[in-house]
């Protein structure tokens, strides 16, 4: 198989950015270079001004009201999209950022829930992003629910999961049904491989599309202005993108 003209990271950036096009304000966590790049990409090609807030950044973060402002801002409905990950993610889009085992008797400890138990409820479009696509991460049922994927109708919840993007595939989350549907598999990945590596059940169309490869203009943006914007926040990742750009 010939080398594609793009890296896996660039593919993922392009996939995530498509989910952000047209939004007004996208926020990204401090340690999220691929989502960060996707936000800058969507911003670079946005028809109307798009705001990108990168937590922990000095130059891409205009908050001036302390650590609570992100959460207050989300509650005010001023953030349209955010990214969350998880040590475990299950088929109901429940997220586990705390650990494996019978809490509090854990066998594996993750850092903790951060703001997930809140932001997942309040931000309309939460995109789950986890590069590792394995039955270890994508489990039938998480051991600890840092944030639930769905809520009963009486629970105030303007937000929730929109999609799950991994290194192998894209799943859309169907809120009504409360489950994932395989939306596409990345170039070179088979549906069987995805099924085998996914610990939870999911719907799939009769024909599973292939995730579209990044277009030339998209790659040019990623390797140009997006990389430059990233450099302050994610210097190591930005350097990787630039190296790839120079090599190609």
């Amino acid at each position, binding site marked *: 198989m010939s080398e594609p003209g793009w890296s896996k990271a660039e593919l993922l950036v392009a996939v995530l950015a498509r989910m952000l096009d047209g939004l007004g304000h996208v926020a990204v966590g401090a340690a999220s270079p691929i989502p960060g790049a996707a936000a800058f990409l969507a911003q670079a090609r946005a028809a109307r001004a798009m705001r990108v807030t990168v937590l922990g950044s000095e130059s891409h973060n205009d908050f001036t009201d302390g650590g609570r402002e992100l*959460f207050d801002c989300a509650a005010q409905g001023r953030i349209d999209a955010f990214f969350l990950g998880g040590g475990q993610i299950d088929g109901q889009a429940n997220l586990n950022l705390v650990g494996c085992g019978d809490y509090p008797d854990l066998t594996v*400890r993750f850092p903790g829930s*951060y703001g997930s*138990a809140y932001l997942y*409820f309040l931000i309309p479009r939460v995109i789950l992003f986890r590069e590792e696509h394995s039955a270890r991460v994508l489990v039938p049922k998480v051991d600890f629910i840092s944030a639930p994927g769905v809520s009963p109708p009486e*629970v105030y919840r303007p937000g929730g999961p929109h999609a799950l993007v991994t290194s192998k595939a894209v799943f859309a989350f169907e809120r009504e049904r409360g489950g994932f549907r395989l939306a596409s598999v990345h170039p070179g990945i088979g549906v069987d491989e995805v099924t085998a590596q996914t610990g939870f059940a999911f719907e799939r169309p009769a024909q599973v599309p292939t995730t579209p490869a990044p277009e030339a203009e998209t790659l040019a943006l990623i390797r140009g202005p997006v990389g430059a914007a990233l450099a302050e926040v994610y210097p190591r990742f930005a350097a990787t993108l630039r190296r790839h750009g120079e090599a190609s």
Partner: protein
Amino acid sequence: MRPLAALIGEIGDGALLAVPPDYSGVAMAATRALIRRGVRGLRLLAVPQSGLQTDLLIGAGCVAAVESAAVSLGDLGPAPRFTAAVLARRIAMTDSTCPAIHAALQATEKGVPFFPLRGLIGSDVLRFRPDWRVIDNPFAGGDPIVLLPAIAPEVALFHAPFADRAGNVWIGRRRELVSMAHAADKTLVTVEEVVDGNLMDDQTLAAGVLPALYVAGVAQAPKGAWPLGLAGRYPPDRAHLARYAELAKSEAGFARYLAEHADAAQAAE
């Protein structure tokens, strides 16, 4: 101004100690001084998460309990001593979520016994917090909402760029330090430098000041956040932090790190 040793003398064994996240001005020099003094039984409240400081204090045996939304070394990976201590159940870990910690401090800031907060319902964060309550919104009905009890830290400790001799501390945009100080009984601050004049006299500076009214003590500690960074002053010492992340994976490595960097012999701080 007080010597660092006198400042941390205000933090007794068992204190409920509020600390900021790694990017917000962590009093690392004061933390090393606390370790050298041999403080014990600290109950750390991370506002709302923590990293090196909490890991170091746990590894040095200073910590009985942690409440936090997360403890991690960021892109350098898990906080090894925290992880080991939690898995061994050597510390009491209270898992929270960022906005809940902010809100619980705001409750104390406002002098109310609880604060309502959206989200949370259906999470195990809530399920394992017997101290949190779900009530039906009295203004609507059929609308469950969480009430968080106020958290009142005994001490808040952080590092800031500068202060004046009256005890006014410039914190700039780092306003989580304001709520923390308002909520804490005593706020102790280390600063890079002490400036002449009164910060309140300059309206541009005043906008970023935590007034002396809330500050129980200030000590000068140049590079006092090192090896973490201080926004606008110096970046994190990534090489040092990477070495910590590596050494702290084992108890022996951590002991070696501690001997090098927080030993009683290092009394220069």
